[in-house]
């Protein structure tokens, strides 16, 4: 089913490490507006995307049970949780 994806637009607080390696920026954990904290165990892919000339970095990450899509707006320096992908066990 397509319904394993939940489309969101939640402003989130993120703890990230800026360092070296494959991902120069590595989100480590984030807090959702409902207070729930999610610890990231793997960054699957980070890729840039554009809204006109504005660059957004998309981080597809997982906490080991659910996959999430986080977007960093490089102009406004804001993070949004835009997708939650779950329900794999019911498939």
């Amino acid at each position, binding site marked *: 089913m397509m319904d394993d994806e939940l489309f969101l637009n939640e402003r989130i607080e993120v703890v990230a490490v800026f360092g070296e390696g*494959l991902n120069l920026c590595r989100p480590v954990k984030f807090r959702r507006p409902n207070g729930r904290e999610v610890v990231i165990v793997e960054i699957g892919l980070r890729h840039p995307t*554009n809204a006109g*000339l504005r660059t957004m970095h998309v981080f597809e990450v997982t906490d080991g*049970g659910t996959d999430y899509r986080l977007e960093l707006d490089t102009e406004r320096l804001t993070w949004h949780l835009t997708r939650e992908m779950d329900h794999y066990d019911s498939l």
Partner: protein
Amino acid sequence: MIRYDYNNERPMIMHIDLNSCFATIEQQARPMLRGRPVAIANRRSEHTCIVTASYEAKKHGASVGMKLSEARKLVPGLIILESDPPKYRYVYRRLMAIMKRYSAHITMKSIDEGIIDFNQATDTIQRRDLRDVGQEIKQSLIDEVGKAMICNVGIAPNRFLAKTAASLNKPDGLDVIDHTSLRSALLSLQLRDLTGIAKHNERRLNAVGIYTPIEFLDADSDTLTRMVFKSVLGTQWHRRLRGWEVDDVVYDMKTVGRQYVLESQNLSKEDILRRLHHLCESVGYRMRSKGRAARGVYVYVRTYNHDYWHRRQMSPLPFYSNQAIYAQAAMLFAQAPITGIREIGVSCYQLETGASDQLSLFGDQLARERQITDAIDEINKRFGERTVHAAHTVGTDTLVRQKVPFGSTRYL
């Protein structure tokens, strides 16, 4: 007479193929999808076809072009995702950057496959064993994109055999075909496994008693030219199969087009026109991004009864704007059948570079139209695709979305 004039030069062409590309990238991006059957479609609708299936889904019989409803019946637990072009373009660019480290002569054949020609690489690179280079490229892809990004590498004296080599041990192969291993490599294949041999060509070959790639290889040039392909294609196949290069050709852009499978059977003609208008805007933008103007417009319609209707029209002067393309497309479409339309498409052809030098009575008007069009394109480039578009196409954005084209890397 059979002649074994195989190309015995050192294999210097490398073909790199990301199999099940979009599905593999999704599995890389979303760790929870790894090991699960995944299918990628361009739209969230039961009637849409699969664009890519993961290996796990292919094992159960899912294949490219299969309807989602059909795939769902075949594959238990199938996860269907909508394609995400920016993600695939990113991986495409990463792959291209990795390939460019080895030679300036690379060709991206499509979003998921590329070729490195080592004939013109530096001496340092040429002295290396290309198997090691292939292994290094595979590792770089894993290191720089992610651990799920496996690919196939094929090395051979020409493009065709390099692609064939890359298909021998999917999904994580690295194979070489040269004059010593050519026959053994072809032994394991069927005619239809060869790139360029589909149903029609297979039938032609069968008609003269050729049923296997080895028989195809052993056929003489005359038989292929006079009896099978009835053209120079026969000679080309004879040379291609023996490892001689015939596919190093760059084709000029002749048309720019887009098509759309309607989301419902119950759309009014006006609704269909709005979608056609959207396609025209998209075609116009693509055409202008390549610095071209067109002289002709072609419109087609496919119906649920598998009928194909089309009309084309040439214009005395080249045209450039979305409005001009749509005006002609709408005029042609007015003659189309009105019931049972399943798919619509529009193309611009007879492409010309830049502005026309011909003087015209309407020169000022055309110049103004060009300036407005350029200004709108500039706004859309700056603030995002379709920031400014015709009022007529409001509401079509979520339907007629731009997807990744297969077989062409022009717009990546």
